[in-house]
């Protein structure tokens, strides 16, 4: 086998230019695929991280039916105190849940005593919210990095539109679940960076203030955001939580809780999926490049060496060894291309990290792309390229192995 490798490698060296061009083609293909995978994966991770860590959380729990009417933020579909307590007792049984934060969400009128507009209010326990949504504080552009009672964090868009500054007094007017209207004065404690989507009009107050304004006697929770300790186990933890909560049914025998991961809550998931599909297409393109280039070069190699094949066959070389000889050549071309391609990809990705490529996503700006070469991707792409290389060599190699020595020796 070593000798066959030696012969195969020497044949590759014998046709230097052809080997160089084929290897380069494969290497460039591997380079582009690896850079694309790394960059798109970094983009995905950054955006998903932003979405989950600055607003959504990894998983959200609502009362069943709430999500269907979420645009109107219905207070009538909040989880009651009993449901909230039930959730807390179950959450304690799942160590993978790092933190959770209950929210009272409602639509309200926001006024600076001159103008008014609508706002979506999130009543939260500050400590629990920050533990679950760690980027929340970093979104506060002005004011104190806290949510205090009697204060409100307002979105940047509203602050600009209504010319509201830190320390200004504002009024929030809301209708509670019984239909009665109540207003409450707040001081602007901070201005928060707007995010993409309906969350762009989200303001934050303390949950006790929310209870007051809505005249709640007991805590009624619109949603519970959860953070888990290992994002890669999202589906597994979601399944555990769903299973544990599924035993809770109402009087009609229907499930009380509705559990959803961020994927079902954010439209970015579709973009993320599209990027994954594009990655698959890019991989197919790489396979096509490898297949065509290796098959082409190996067909040429067989054609040019017909007399040689005839000679070794006449000497008594078994067909399977002739087959192996050419398969090893294709294999070696693939391996060579993969090694060079991965080295180039590593260098390119290192360079991208040094240059620090920034990008904007909707209203968020200044994200720094941080691509990294993952061992799993390297192994997967390398194996695919090598397997395709051998597969592409199969047809010419079989042709060589089946060649009649007498005809091959006659070839001029």
């Amino acid at each position, binding site marked *: 086998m070593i*000798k*066959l490798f030696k*012969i195969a490698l*020497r*044949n590759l*060296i*014998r046709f230097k230019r052809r080997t160089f061009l084929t290897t380069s083609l494969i290497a460039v293909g591997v380079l582009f695929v690896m850079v694309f995978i790394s960059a798109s994966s970094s983009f995905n991770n950054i955006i998903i991280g932003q979405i989950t860590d600055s607003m959504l959380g990894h998983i959200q729990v609502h009362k069943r039916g709430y999500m269907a009417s979420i645009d109107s933020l219905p207070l009538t579909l909040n989880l009651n105190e009993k449901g909230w307590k039930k959730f807390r007792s179950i959450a304690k049984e799942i160590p993978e849940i790092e933190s959770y934060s209950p929210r009272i969400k409602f639509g309200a009128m926001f006024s600076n005593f001159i103008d008014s507009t609508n706002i979506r209010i999130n009543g939260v326990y500050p400590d629990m919210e920050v533990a679950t949504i760690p980027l929340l504080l970093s979104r506060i552009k002005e004011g104190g990095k806290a949510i205090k009672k009697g204060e409100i964090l307002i979105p940047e868009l509203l602050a600009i539109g209504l010319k509201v500054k830190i320390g200004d007094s504002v009024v929030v007017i809301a209708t509670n679940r019984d239909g009665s209207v109540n207003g409450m004065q707040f001081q602007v404690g901070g201005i928060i960076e707007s995010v993409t989507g309906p969350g762009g009009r989200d303001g934050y107050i303390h949950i006790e203030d929310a209870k007051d304004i809505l005249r709640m006697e007991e805590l009624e929770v619109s949603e519970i955001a959860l953070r888990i300790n290992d994002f890669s186990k999202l589906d597994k933890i979601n399944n555990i939580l769903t299973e544990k909560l599924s035993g809770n049914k109402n009087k009609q025998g229907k499930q009380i809780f509705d559990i959803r991961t961020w994927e079902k809550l954010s439209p970015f998931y579709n973009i993320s999926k599209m990027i994954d599909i594009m990655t698959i297409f890019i991989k197919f393109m790489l396979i096509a490049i490898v297949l065509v280039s290796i098959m082409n070069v190996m067909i040429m190699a067989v054609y040019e060496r017909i*007399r*040689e094949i*005839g*000679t*070794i*066959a*006449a*000497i*008594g*070389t*078994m*067909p399977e*060894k002739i087959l192996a000889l050419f398969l090893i050549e294709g294999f070696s071309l693939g391996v060579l291309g993969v090694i060079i391609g991965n080295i180039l990809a590593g260098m390119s990705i290192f360079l991208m990290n040094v240059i620090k490529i920034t990008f904007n996503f909707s209203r968020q700006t200044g994200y720094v792309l941080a691509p990294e070469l993952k061992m799993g991707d390297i192994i997967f792409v390398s194996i695919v390229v090598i397997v395709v290389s051998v597969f592409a060599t199969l047809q010419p190699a079989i042709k060589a192995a089946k060649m*009649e*020595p*007498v005809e091959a*020796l006659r070839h001029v």
Partner: protein
Amino acid sequence: MSLISAVDINKIYRSGDIEVHALKSVDFEIESGSFISFIGPSGSGKTTLLNLIGCLDKPTSGKLEVAGILTSDLSRREAAFFRGENLGFIFQDFNLIPVLTVYENVEYPLLLVQNLPQKERSDRVYSLLEKVGMKDQVDKYPDQISGGQKQRVAVARALVSKPRLVLADEPTANLDSKTAFMVIDIMRQMRDDYGVTFIFSTHDPKIVGEVETLFTLVDGVLVSTKKGKGGQND
């Protein structure tokens, strides 16, 4: 018992409607240790006959036995195995493998055909290269040596597997007279040393004058068998 026995051998090539009768009812016997040649003009069937003896092709009809084996019964793999164990080949264009050195070319049949251990391979290769006068060129590649040297390497390669029979198709056609005689001398010496049977196909008078038996083919018919000048009985 003869090494080769051919009875009523016919070989017909067909290409569409065209039929070429390359060998017509050829009968002959060759004893072990012979140094013989098939001669005749181009197209007389010499190479075809060598191909049949070398199990590279099969007769259309007739019975051909080589070393006691009916070659027409051999499958592709069996024929390859038989060639590897019993036959050596020398070609007009030398047909050395260009990516292998002189040593590796000679070693090839032992390594990739007979799978012999390294020590035995090395002993046999060096011994033969010494006999053909190429021991000091072992690391050279075929494109670094002359035509005569290439043919000497080819002779060593043909003999290294200890075959019973060496088939040489026009072995001196691409060599000058001096080199041709030298190569023939080497082959005869090998025959004497190892008892290997040598069969040539040629119309080169240099070989014709050196072999022991001459089979003359004309238009696929074996027209005569006679002793050559190199014949031991002369």
